[in-house]
């Protein structure tokens, strides 16, 4: 088969049996835009049972069709059944591209079925484009620690597989189409063939401070932070502003703050109305994960790249500026 014989784009709809995860819907909206350019049809792929109201949400993203896979082995999640389902489906329908939300489980099984299908896989693209000359999708992302932007393509093999981080694209549904194709596939995965299976699950104690993806005000601290004992003032500032604390990758690497607070391309993608960052250098990987209404940067280095992304910049000692800001905000109240 020639690569041009592979048609249509698929988006995997991750869900927990009750609700579809936002990332699949976000991807449907973005890949809809791409399909309008390429002329491909957009199909959402749902493994296992999902309530009708949630399927309606998927349809609302202007998909041309929904492929629902029934059978044993899909709940709870396991790598073997999920990878197998996409391999079986892809061999039958030969899609041009498969997009999978870059959740922990999405990133777990997508690269695996890409090998089963002997095709190329990319991860963490921040932009999707199409090159009509080659017929290839361009997966565009910061690379080498943010020093460069790289365009990645799958030039000969199909399908083109990409995992995309939650929050990269906006959920902006344009409404269901008049005609939505319904495909149901029965693919049973025998339980005894599941090589790694869940025995139990313990949900994290809900800590709202660790959920920053929808937060309106974020105070982000970067590698300029001397050590964990200096965090108190930033927490206080965040609380005064009705916001939450976030961090850059080095602070997670240094063990000062948890991964859930890491903002950027390889962490949480955020869209606050007001974003403060202190002691952040401004690596592309970090700023690629932020779309802020108002962006304030504080850094002791006047040449720090972060100042290129801010609305307002203050050159100065991060702790001093933070303390002064706390005092000024308290004085206003």
């Amino acid at each position, binding site marked *: 088969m020639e690569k041009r014989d592979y048609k249509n784009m698929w988006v995997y709809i991750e869900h927990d049996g009750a609700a579809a995860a936002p990332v699949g819907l976000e991807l449907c909206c973005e890949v809809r835009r791409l399909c309008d350019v390429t002329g491909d049809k957009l199909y959402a792929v749902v493994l296992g049972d999902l309530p009708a109201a949630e399927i309606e949400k998927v349809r609302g993203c202007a998909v041309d069709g929904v492929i629902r896979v029934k059978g044993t082995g899909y709940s709870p999640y396991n*790598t073997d059944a999920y990878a197998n389902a996409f391999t079986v489906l892809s061999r039958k329908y030969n899609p041009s591209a498969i997009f999978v939300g870059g*959740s922990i489980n999405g990133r777990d099984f997508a690269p*695996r079925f890409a*090998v089963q299908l002997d095709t*190329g896989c990319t991860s963490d693209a921040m932009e999707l484009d199409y090159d009509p000359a080659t017929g290839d999708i361009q997966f565009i992302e910061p690379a080498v620690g943010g020093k460069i932007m790289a365009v990645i393509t799958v030039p000969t093999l199909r399908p083109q597989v990409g995992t995309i981080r939650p929050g990269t694209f906006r959920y902006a549904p344009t409404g269901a189409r008049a005609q939505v194709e319904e495909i149901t596939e029965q693919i049973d995965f025998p339980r005894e063939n599941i090589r*790694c299976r869940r025995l139990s*699950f*313990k949900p994290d104690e809900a800590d709202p401070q660790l959920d920053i993806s929808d937060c309106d005000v974020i105070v982000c601290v970067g590698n300029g932070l001397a050590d964990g004992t200096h965090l108190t003032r930033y927490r206080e500032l965040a609380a005064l502003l009705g916001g939450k604390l976030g961090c850059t990758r080095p602070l997670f690497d240094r063990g000062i703050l948890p991964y859930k607070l890491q903002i950027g391309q390889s962490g949480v993608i955020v869209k606050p109305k007001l974003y403060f960052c202190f002691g952040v250098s401004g690596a592309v990987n970090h700023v690629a994960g932020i779309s802020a209404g108002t962006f304030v940067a504080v850094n002791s280095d006047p040449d720090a790249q972060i*100042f290129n992304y801010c609305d*307002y910049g203050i050159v100065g000692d991060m702790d001093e500026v933070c303390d002064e800001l706390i005092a000024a905000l308290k004085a206003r109240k």
Partner: protein
Amino acid sequence: MLKILVCVKQVPDVELVKMDPETGNLVREGVPTLTNPLDTNALEAAVQMKEKYGGTVTVITMGPPMAAATLRECLACGADSAVLISGRPFGGADTLSTSYTVAKAAETLGKFDLIFCGKESLDGATGQMASQLAERFDAAQITGCLLIERCDPDKNVLIAQRALENGVETVEARLPCLLTVEKQNYRARIPNLRGKLAARKAEIAVLTENDITGLDPRKIGVPGSGTIVPRIYPPALPEPGQFLSEGSTEKNVARLVGLLAGKSAI
């Protein structure tokens, strides 16, 4: 007795890699290299398994001859033997061909019960290698393992905790199993002097394309890669924002508060 393999990578210190503004190429010359940080956590988990259940730890990497330095670091930290896959035809490989090559090379060393690799690399950072290697090894996989609770080599099972976005699941996997570990429970150990000396003298086996039986030349290096990078470019740097320079921190902050209040941002 567990036969354990750890797949590691030598990476450039990405902080020091620069892009040549004239040619648009990455300048790697003279850039120091290091063992991919998350690979050291994978090695630590492997060595802990060996210490607990008995067995051997082999480290394997693919790269130029200088990548042997990474293997020696691993030997100093508890690995027993080391293998370097090296040769021109392997160059330019993406994860599709690298996973093929590493698994084919490992086949020449026998069957492994446990395979560890880092969660992602500092340079490529795709985070795809683990799942792709697991498929190549026809093994179970546990990505993002928080803690290995226990392993029963006789029954061929392993029980582990895996971190998810909203909690922790306990899973049971069959051997062979490939794992990536979260770093918090597997901080890399500091090698002692004896380990360092032994590592310096240790023999490192080198496998070239001619030493790996059944290697399909179409599946390695550039020809075996599924992805290419047709273009790189410097990230567009926006114009700097408005610097507040009123003469003192106090005045700068007062000005900022005024500006934000004016926009109803606070």
